[in-house]
Structure formats: C-alpha cells, structure tokens
C-alpha cells in the first residue's frame, strides 16, 4: 500500500516534469537560437550597416533602402488601414450591434483572419498591381498589407469601443447629442488609447510580413531610396530573404544582422504601443 502510493507520487512528479518540458523546451530553444543569431550578425552590425546600400561584397552591403522602404510601407499601410478599420469597428459596435449585417460582416472577418498571407498577395497582385495598374509600387504593397491587417485592426478597435460604458452614451443622448456627436466627442476619445495600442500591435505584424510582398513584386536588390508612392521598393524582410537565398556563406551574416535590426524595430514598435497605452490612460483618468 505504502509502496503503491510512492509510485503514484513518482508518476505524478514525472508527468509534471514532462509538462514543464512543453513550456521550457520551446522557450529555451528560442533563447539559444536568438543567441546564435546575434552572435552571427554582430560582426556586421558594427560600421555603417544601417546606412549603406546593398553590394556584391557582403561586408560592404547595408540595409538603408530596406529600412526606408519598410518605413514607407508601414506609414502608408497605417494611413490606409486605420480609418477604414476604425470606421468599420464603429459601424459594427455603435450602429449595428445586433443587426443582420453585423453578423454577416463578423463571419467574413473571422474567415479573413484565417486566410494565409500569401493569398492576400495574390489578391494584391491581381487587383492592385494589374487591375488598378499600380505596378510594383510601394503603394500596391501597402494596400495589400492594409487588407491583411484590417481584420486585426477592426477586432482590436471593437474591443476598445466595448470598454466604454453604455451609460456615457445614454448621458450624451439625454443632453440632446446626436449619435455621431456622442461617438465623436465622447466614445471615440475614451476608446482611443485601446484603439491605438491594438492598431500599432497589428501594424507591427505587418513589418515582418514577407510572403505577400514577394507576390506583389517588392524587389530584392534596390540601390536607391523610394521617392514617392509609385516608386519601386524593397523592405527589411525582403532584403533578409534575398540574403538568405544567396549561396555564399558571407551573406548569411548580413541576413542575421538584418534580422537583429528587424526584431529590434518590432520590439520598439511594441514598446511604443504599451507606453502609449499607459500614458494616455493616465491622461483620461
């Protein structure tokens, strides 16, 4: 009897250890891989990697066009997706909360969130690049990314709108405000911190997206900076992909350095989102 109980205890401990492995193995592996990555890219990060143009010589190549291209891409994506996403969220939350249309749109959004990103690239290729004649421009890339992150923006904006107490809307209407006045002057300002945080997090996803950009024709080697929305462009993940695809070993170090820059950018953007939320929340309170 006693023996059996210790056996059960032992089995239990073993299982807990096994479960802990499910958490620690992937996390540990990630740490090891990130460490190896930084080590591989460190040598290239010194010098003017950030300010140089791509080159046939791995140790002279830099990522300036990719960095500037990514900045263009994300700014345009934000300009395109934020008004539409927030507008759609307001419509679904404030005008159509339980309507038929809202349910129909909801099903569509849920479905869109599951569509592989490369398929969005095909949509962008057929519609923006060919049909609308935008070609391989930074605008076509941004429009494609905007559609890709739109479901995420709508989702987070709706959640933020839902946190505004119903009583505030009722108070507005009691004071004679119309629906839009209540939304524009009370509901939206209150929900803004949440909307901004969610949208920035959604956009930070777009910074790392590669597959749709390949399909809509972002270039891999660019030796100039984009000079407008119709300019050809490259982006950070595209440049990394170009270097990873090279057979020469030296370019892998460039890819590692590029990845370090990419991850740093994403970390920075996420940090900004969290900082913004805390700061704006204090102001509102």
């Amino acid at each position, binding site marked *: 009897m006693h023996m059996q109980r210790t056996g059960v205890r032992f089995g239990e401990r073993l299982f807990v250890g096994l479960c802990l492995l499910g958490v620690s*193995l*992937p996390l540990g592996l990630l740490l090891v891989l990130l460490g190896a990555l930084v080590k591989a890219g460190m040598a290239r990060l010194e010098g003017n990697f950030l300010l140089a143009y791509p080159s046939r010589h791995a140790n002279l190549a830099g990522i300036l066009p990719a960095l500037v291209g990514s900045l263009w891409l994300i700014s345009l994506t934000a300009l395109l997706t934020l008004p539409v996403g927030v507008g759609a969220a307001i419509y679904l939350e404030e005008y159509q909360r339980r309507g038929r249309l809202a349910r129909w749109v909801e099903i569509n959004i849920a479905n869109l969130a599951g569509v592989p990103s490369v398929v969005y690239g095909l949509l962008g290729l*057929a519609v923006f690049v060919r049909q609308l004649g935008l070609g391989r421009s930074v605008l076509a890339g941004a429009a494609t990314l905007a559609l890709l992150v739109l479901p995420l923006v709508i989702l987070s904006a709706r959640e933020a709108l839902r946190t505004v107490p119903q009583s505030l809307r009722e108070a507005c209407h009691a004071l004679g405000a119309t629906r839009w006045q209540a939304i524009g002057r009370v509901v939206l300002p209150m929900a803004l911190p949440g909307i901004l945080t969610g949208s920035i997090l959604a956009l930070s996803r777009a910074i790392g997206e590669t597959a749709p950009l390949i399909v809509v024709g972002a270039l891999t080697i660019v030796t100039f900076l984009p000079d407008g929305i119709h300019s050809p462009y490259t982006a950070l993940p595209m440049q990394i992909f170009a270097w990873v695809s090279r057979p020469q070993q030296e370019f892998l170090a460039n890819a590692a350095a590029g990845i370090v820059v990419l991850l740093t950018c994403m970390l920075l953007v996420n940090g900004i989102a969290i900082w913004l939320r805390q700061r704006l929340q204090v102001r509102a309170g």
Partner: protein
Amino acid sequence: MRVDDAAPWFERMVELFLCGCALIAVGTTGGIALVLALETLAFFREVSPSQLLMDSQWTPLFAEKHFGLWPLLAGTCLTSAIALLVALPLGLLAAIYLSEFASPLVRRLLKPALELLAGIPAIVYGYFALVFVTPALQRVIPELAGFNSLGAGIVLGIMLIPMISSLSEDALFAVPNGLREGAYALGAGRLPTIFRVVLPSAMSGIAASVILAASRAVGETMIVSIAAGQQPRLTLDPRVPVETMTAYIVQVSLGDTPAGTLEYRSVFVVGAALFLITFALNALSCRFKRRFGGLA
C-alpha cells in the same frame, strides 16, 4: 463654413461612410474568391481539370509542362504533418502545465512568454531552419539534404506551439472545478483526474486548436520556401528537398512572369487550392470550438 454636425443629412452621411468601411471587409473576402476563381477558370480553359488530379508531375516552368497537383500537396502535407508532430505534444503538455499545475504567478509570466514565439516573423524562423536546425540535424542524420522538410517542419512546429497551447489552455481552464473535485471525491488521483475527466471534457476545444494549427501550417510560406527547397517531388521522405504549394507561389513570383501566361495562372490555381484547404480547416475548427463553447 462650419459643418453642422447635428444635421440629419450629416448623420446620414457619416453612417453611410462607416457602413462603407465595414463593407470593405466583406469586399476583401469576395475579392479573394473572385480573383482566384476567375484566374482558375481561365487556366482550366487551357488545361483540363482532370490533369490536376491525374498527373503525378508538376513542371509548369519546364518546356514540357505537367500540371499534377499531387507533388505540391505531398510537400505541404509532409511539412505540416512534421510540424504538428512537434507542436501537438509540446503544445498540449504546455497547456496542461499552465492550466493544471502552474501557480497563478508562473502562469501570468509564462503565457506571454509563449505568445512571443508566435510574434516572431516567419522569415526569422526560416533563417533558423536553414542555418541552425538543418546543420544540427545533419550531424545526426548524415544523408539529410541541405533543403529538407524535416528541418522546416520542426521549426514550423515550434512556431505553432503557442497557438495550440493557448487555445487548449483556454479549453482546459474552462472545465468547471466541480468536475475535478468530483473526481477527487471519488478517490481519483491527480493524473487519473486529468486524463479521464479534464482532458475528455476539453476535447473539442483541443481539437479546434489542433485543426487551426494545421490550417496555419498549410498556409505558412516563408519557412518552407527558405528551408524545404523548391523541387516538387511526390515523396514522403523527410530528408530530401520538396516544394509546398506556398513555396511554388513564391518561386514563380520571384521570376518575372507576364500576366495571362499559363505559369502566371498556375499560381492562382495553387492559391485557390490553398484557400479551399485552409477555409475547410478553419470552418471545421470553428465547429469544434462552438461545441466547446456550449459545454462551458
């Protein structure tokens, strides 16, 4: 002139504009379906649909063109299966740990840490698979090719772990404590309670998470394009280069294929197949999830 924002016509305009925004989301779904359908139909005017399923070779870029989808399907299935073999056990164990054993503090720390795995861009995982994981595997399996589905699949699996663990954990956590207490009252130990009471009750939620992860694995593009190779091959051997459906789309997009050619359209055909498979998996996952929602 100041716009009178209380005027009825202004209210109406605002509502119409907002409605338009919401309809863009619907338009996107419609646009994807339309684009894929139109190009696929144009493709079928030149190549019979039966070739897609009967031919065993995929060589649209060669002089002698074959359009058998099976090699690409096999590549996708192989990498996805390997990914799930990695992600399912680890993700499920992590979910059990977080829901049943971890203290609230540990849970609060580890959950976002695991989510971090899902936030890293796929291109970074692709680099890991090609530069670190494949060479490490080659030390154990010397005949492993530089591009292979094993390394790509394992890394893809690591990326999917948080998806399985977080959704499964939600399902496990939603199992009412009364069920656990009932099992303890009947004299069951902790392990029998987990395996015979908690896991079965959460089964539909767990199934939903696994199917969703499968859908994500099928649609993942960069890891397999970088590390699994670009050679369409009808094989289940994880050591040799293959090509997935997504990798084919990338391969053709990198070349400069003029619109209207058969190669150009073949990309949309593959995209349509991809869309249908992921759509079916997502719908299935949704059904399981709804069942789990009804139980909780």
